[in-house]
């Protein structure tokens, strides 16, 4: 599953970040790495960006970026 398809208020775990080094490195700088739990807090209308929260920090991610983030459901 991709992060871009996750519904609002759902929490998932990052599995992998695809599409070259650029995006992965930028996300790493914001402390978003494979293994992290993220919660989608807002989805902007008109194919806008997603607002995700991880470790108490909110980050806005454009669609293109969120499509490169592979996530999995957290089995509770």
């Amino acid at each position: 599953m991709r992060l871009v398809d996750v519904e609002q208020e759902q929490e998932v775990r990052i599995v992998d970040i695809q599409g070259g080094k650029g995006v992965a490195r930028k996300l790493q700088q914001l402390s978003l790495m494979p293994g992290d739990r993220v919660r989608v807090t807002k989805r902007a209308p008109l194919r806008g960006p997603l607002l995700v929260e991880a470790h108490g920090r909110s980050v806005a991610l454009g669609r293109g970026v969120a499509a490169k983030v592979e996530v999995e459901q957290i089995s509770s």
Partner: protein
Amino acid sequence: MKIALIGQPNCGKSTLFNQVAGYKAETGNFPGTTVKYTESKVQVLGEKVDLVDLPGTYSLTGTNLAEKEVLRYLASHEVDVILNVVNATQLMQGLELSLELMELGKPMVIGVNMMDEAGRLGYDIDGPALREKLGVPVLPLVARRGRGIQKLFTTALRIGENGQSSQRIPFQNPSLEEAIADIAQYFDGKIEGWDPEALAIRLLEDGEEMQEQVEKEVPRVIPEIENKKQAIEKELGKEPLWAFSAERHILAQELTEQVLTKGEERMTWQARLDKAFLHPFWGYVLLLIVLWTFFQVVYKVGITLEDPLLAAFNALSAQLSQWIGSGSLLANVVVGGVQGIAGGAAIVLPYLIPFLVGMGFMEDVGYLPRVAFLMDALMRRLGLHGKAIVPFILGYGCSVPAVMSTRTLEEKRDRFLSATLATMIPCAARVAVIFGLVAYYLGSQVALGIYIYNLVVIAIVGRLLSNRFLKDTPGLILEVPPYRLPSGRTVFHKTWFRAREFILEAWPLLILGSMALELANHYRISDLLNTLLQPVTWVLGLPSAVGMPLIFGVLRKELSLVMLRQALGVMDFSNALSPVQMITFTIFVVFYIPCLATLAALRREFSTRDTVLIAGLSVVIAMVAALIARGFAYLIAPVLSFQI
């Protein structure tokens, strides 16, 4: 003693700096770059200390220029103590940077800031335990209220005097430590300032910024680094960069779990504010209200100051000209100089300063990142992303700060494209032309039409440029910090430093250009200029006398209207220009070559080549846009009962 202040964006580092630095702070650039730092002398226990405020950075492994310069500077001999500010509400992320900083092996102190905010979130942070685990002094801080600052600085001073260096926490994976030790032995004291192990880690990760120097001074280590990199990648299945950062990431999480206990959260108004401001419908309504209010205030303040200031300068230049002898060369040049000073003092600054104050406020209160979130979908259609909205908003005030604000974008293609498009937004000076000509003679609906047409053209140009010539934008990745009450001091400092860039760099050009204008007038070269511009004016169907005002419009956009009256020899424009000509002229003025001050700003942010490119492109766009508008105006003229 030199103390370097460093922390992640939104950690309150600038608030701390402004609390202690007073108003005597000086900004400088790292050599050969536009990367800025601020330096100030501070008294600590009777001792003078140089405090350097470095640009906020999430990580030292960053890819952008600012992060590389920061790293180089921190490792250099110049820095005696690293003062690392960590945001208590984002302890885990902050510690990732702290761990990187500790690897540099310099004396270091950590200030955990925003303890009050963390308290409201129900966080309890065990400072002594963290100190124990890191082996570096850790002190609580509420910079906004000035709490903990004294103790932080006395500790920093003591650490600096002892020269007590930080000790990095070893990496868990033995192959990483082995590789570090192997590479480090090549360096012992060979590269100025660098701790051998710190340099080894950097070079194994990436080390682009040190590559050249190392190649020159210790060439035999280069193949060894490559070998180690490959060996690590083979063994761990990932490049060293990821191996190192994953270890720090996990260590920071473990440390946070050990020292931070979460109690009950007491702060819910943040979420409630976001419910409104980021609402899929009301969020946009609120955005419009905020922007409308912002522009109203800026416009009111500006106009109140502009009129009397302009009158005063006009009186002064009349006086001077009479006193020197009107019509003489000297008098004309002096008047040109005074008019140039007036252009900055009476026309630009009265709008620019309230604009910058407003932007600084919106930035510090945390609204701008939310605007970026709301506008991302729209900006993507221009081939940009949400963060690029800032130059566009600023563009409606003045193109100079708009161009300067593109600096916050990481990618060169985003910077270039947003600067190109933002210079086409009608700034306050071009508003004068739109209102003075189109709104006055043809009505406000036509003026509104020009605004909308302007946005349509910008959208088309953005799309064309990004589809045809530029690679795809990587997209929006932006931290959205909590709402905060901004401190007046920080906003004041921001405004002052940004206004100073205009004062020092663009204003002198304005004055020189204004003097050149008077010289040209003195020697009556208007006929020559009109002839030179004949191809343009002919194609646009404008009288050839319009040529000179267009040329001087490059100096300051509103000059094209002021001079038009002179050039056409009429008081009432409707006697010399048809409605269609008015529309064509205005559209051309809105799009063609940005004013001199903007060109100077472009040149500073990009290069001479890019500046010429943008200027050339703007002429082409202006021609095409004006011609299309001309054709369209002919079509709709009967409907609106214009005379053609």
